[in-house]
């Protein structure tokens, strides 16, 4: 009843479920990037500090690890929510294909275990474990982060390129003919045709997002006049990672996209906005797909560019949307707009990385200009937008299928009636988590700026550090 009052008819529960999944996944992906890429940056800062006996680098690593502690906690819980949602929202997917794609999740779970264990050791090991050993605790975190990304991406890639099983028709208990999954080959499912490049694409994206975001924090500080060595190193380390990842990313993305030409041509047609199968297709930037053609876009002056990108031949033939019935087509404009956003931002970040790299090559130092710093400030959020746009491209582009060509999203969704309500709750809760997290991290940086190296937790009123005399051994970091 409440749901009827608030949201109208129940047919749209599929939309609510998709929105809830998109929101929680899209949120977790940003945080997960920090789990994957941030430890590598902390590692560089920490090792550099030990090697050069440089307290400034060590302090950077220490502070980053505290910020990471907050982000890892958010990542752990939002990741758990996703594993719940696999069943809560998509019982049809899990009941049917759980044992095909599940093994990758199990291996991801092991990676997460390793990550969580060594994060605990690293975060709480400051000043307790000998520095060299302590800094090495980041290595299993980095490896596990990379492995975990691979296995999660493997599941997503499998949904795009399902393999490693056979479908057999069996007569169900009520006499109906049902499809049953047999002959599962879990390794074939994990190492499907899409996983390699999709994984590399996401892995690099994580380094770009975190690299540009963290560098942007120090760029902001430098614009406000804090240009000491601490801020210069804090900017340089993450930026180096981002600048290595950014120029490789378009090439990986290009080859990942070429897989679509044969395996998911309808997704490619949506990306290009191609109504009918054609040869020598040009690339059009911007505009709107009105169901037949793109209106108002700018055609790039290279005939057959889109064909070339997809098939390596300017005369290559691309499948149009018309090859499948309307109900099997994804929403073209969403996919196309998301794709172009990703490509546009990605290209801009390559230019920014080139600027930084060129400056470093010429003068052995990063560009100091105000405009360079200003662009760095926006590069982080822009990288996040590109990341999300990329996910929208691949996820919405796969629609109406949850498992490409085999299981429709509408057949996998739960029949629970209150998904709009749960979506609304999730929106509020994730907003609260965001506000809380931002608030806490900002308060940390404020106290660091004020010269506190020690962040005491206010367990009681006006908790002065001296008052801990009565509780030996229980003082906070």
């Amino acid at each position, binding site marked *: 009843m409440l749901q009827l009052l608030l949201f109208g008819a129940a047919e749209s529960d599929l939309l609510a479920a998709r929105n809830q999944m998109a929101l929680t996944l899209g949120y977790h992906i940003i945080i997960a990037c920090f789990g994957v890429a941030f430890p590598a940056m902390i590692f560089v800062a920490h090792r550099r500090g030990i090697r050069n006996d440089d307290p400034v680098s060590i*302090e950077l690593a220490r502070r980053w690890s505290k910020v990471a*502690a907050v982000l890892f906690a*958010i990542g*752990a*819980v939002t990741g*758990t*929510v996703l594993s*719940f949602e696999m*069943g809560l929202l998509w*019982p049809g997917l*899990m*009941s*049917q294909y*759980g*044992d095909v794609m*599940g*093994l990758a*999740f*199990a*291996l991801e779970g*092991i990676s997460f*275990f*390793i990550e*969580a*264990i*060594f994060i*605990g*050791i690293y975060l*709480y*090991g400051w000043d*307790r474990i000998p520095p060299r050993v302590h800094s090495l605790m980041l290595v*299993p975190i980095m490896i596990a982060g990379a492995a975990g990304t691979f296995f999660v991406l493997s599941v997503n890639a499998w949904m795009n390129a399902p393999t490693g099983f056979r479908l057999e028709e069996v007569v169900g208990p009520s006499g109906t003919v049902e499809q049953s999954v047999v*002959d599962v*080959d*879990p*390794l074939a499912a994990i190492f499907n045709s899409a996983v390699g490049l999709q994984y590399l694409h996401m892995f690099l994206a994580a380094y770009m997002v975190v690299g540009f975001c963290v560098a942007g924090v120090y760029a902001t500080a430098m614009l406000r006049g804090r240009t*000491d060595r601490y801020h210069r190193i804090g900017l340089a380390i993450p930026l180096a990672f981002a600048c290595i990842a950014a120029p490789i990313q378009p090439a990986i993305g290009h080859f990942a996209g070429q897989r679509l030409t044969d395996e998911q041509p309808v997704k490619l047609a949506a990306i290009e906005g191609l109504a009918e199968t054609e040869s020598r297709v040009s690339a059009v930037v911007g505009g709107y797909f009105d169901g037949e053609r793109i209106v108002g876009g700018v055609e790039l002056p290279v005939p057959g560019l889109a064909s070339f990108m997809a098939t390596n031949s300017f005369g290559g033939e691309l499948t149009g949307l018309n090859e499948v019935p309307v109900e099997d087509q994804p929403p073209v404009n969403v996919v196309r707009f998301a794709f172009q956003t990703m490509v546009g931002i990605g290209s801009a970040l390559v230019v920014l990385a080139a600027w930084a790299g060129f400056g470093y090559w010429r003068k052995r130092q990063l560009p100091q200009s105000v405009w360079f710093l200003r662009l760095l400030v926006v590069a982080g959020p822009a990288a996040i937008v590109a990341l999300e746009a990329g996910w929208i491209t691949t996820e919405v582009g796969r629609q109406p299928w949850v498992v490409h060509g085999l299981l429709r999203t509408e057949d996998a969704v739960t029949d629970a009636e209150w998904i709009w309500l*749960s979506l609304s709750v999730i929106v509020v809760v994730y907003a609260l*988590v965001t506000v*809380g*997290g931002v608030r806490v991290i900002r*308060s*940390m940086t404020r106290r*660091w700026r004020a*010269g506190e*190296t*020690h962040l005491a*937790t206010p*367990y*009681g009123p*006006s*908790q002065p*550090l001296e008052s*801990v005399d*009565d*509780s030996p051994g*229980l*003082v*906070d*970091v």
Partner: protein
Amino acid sequence: MDLADVVALVMFLGIIAYAVFAGADFGSGIWDLGAGNAEDGGPTRRLIDHAIGPVWEANHVWLIFVLVFLWTGFPEAFGAIMSTLYVPFSFVALGIIFRGCGFAFRKFADDLNSARLFGVAFALSSLLTPFFLGMIAGAIASGRVPIDGSGNRWTSWIGPTSWVGGLLAVLTCAFLAAVFLAADAERLGHEELTERFRRRAFVTAIICGVAAIGGVAPLLLDAETLADGLLGKGVGFMIVSGASGLASIVLLHKSRLAAARLTAVTAVAAVVGGWGVAQYPWVLVDHATIAEVAGDSATLWGLLISFGVAAVLVLPSLAYLYLLTDKSVLGTEFNKHGQDHESVVVK
């Protein structure tokens, strides 16, 4: 015992590990909730942060482990459980978000009011999450989750067995945590907290025992299959649990806290293990057996191999983490004033 049984066994070992280790973390949150106002509760809350800070995320992963084994090993059962128990699982999800974020945020909060807010989120959800998980266990164990997932989304998880499950889950968490915290406080040399948690552990142990015995009656009426199993093939576990519980009470009385930790873990592990044995061979009691809903055998082998990998990689790492925590190598600052931090002031 065939392949699917082994997978089910491994999954259930994960449930036991979650019940014991994450249980102690949840229980610490419950004691945090009752630690008193900001003035009096400070030392307790500091002890709780010290005790669970380094380990809670790792302990939490057992839940992921169990979920993944369930959906990979027994996919249909997972779909059915999540469909029928949509509501309590949603509450658990919310509880997990607020627990984790509340705990992590409080540690770095800069003023008392926000620390209080985050602390309440952490503590309250530490109480509610195990309660709903216990209700979920009760729903499955009392045969209320049919394999087609069509169980009533409201009445399935509020039967008598669910209440027993929820209550026992909260009590065992509180019991484990009190014992662990008493031992931690003793190791850190804080006499007042040691004594406080020793007394709490002692009382909670008695309440747990009374609740466990009192819970038998509703089970006999409401969950026949489970009750038969508990008093039949699972009775050994019940005896071990009861004996360990009694031993814990005695050891707590004698202030032998390190030993009490072992008996407390045994008591809780045995009661959870007893539930598993009593429910065997059902995954969904009265509706689906292990053999009926087991996934493809190639995948089951894969799961077991991945568990082998986990045993080689994860368990030693986990042991190392616990060792460091237990020796207070990890944890929050140890020195008296917290000032002689070996770091530079960077402007």
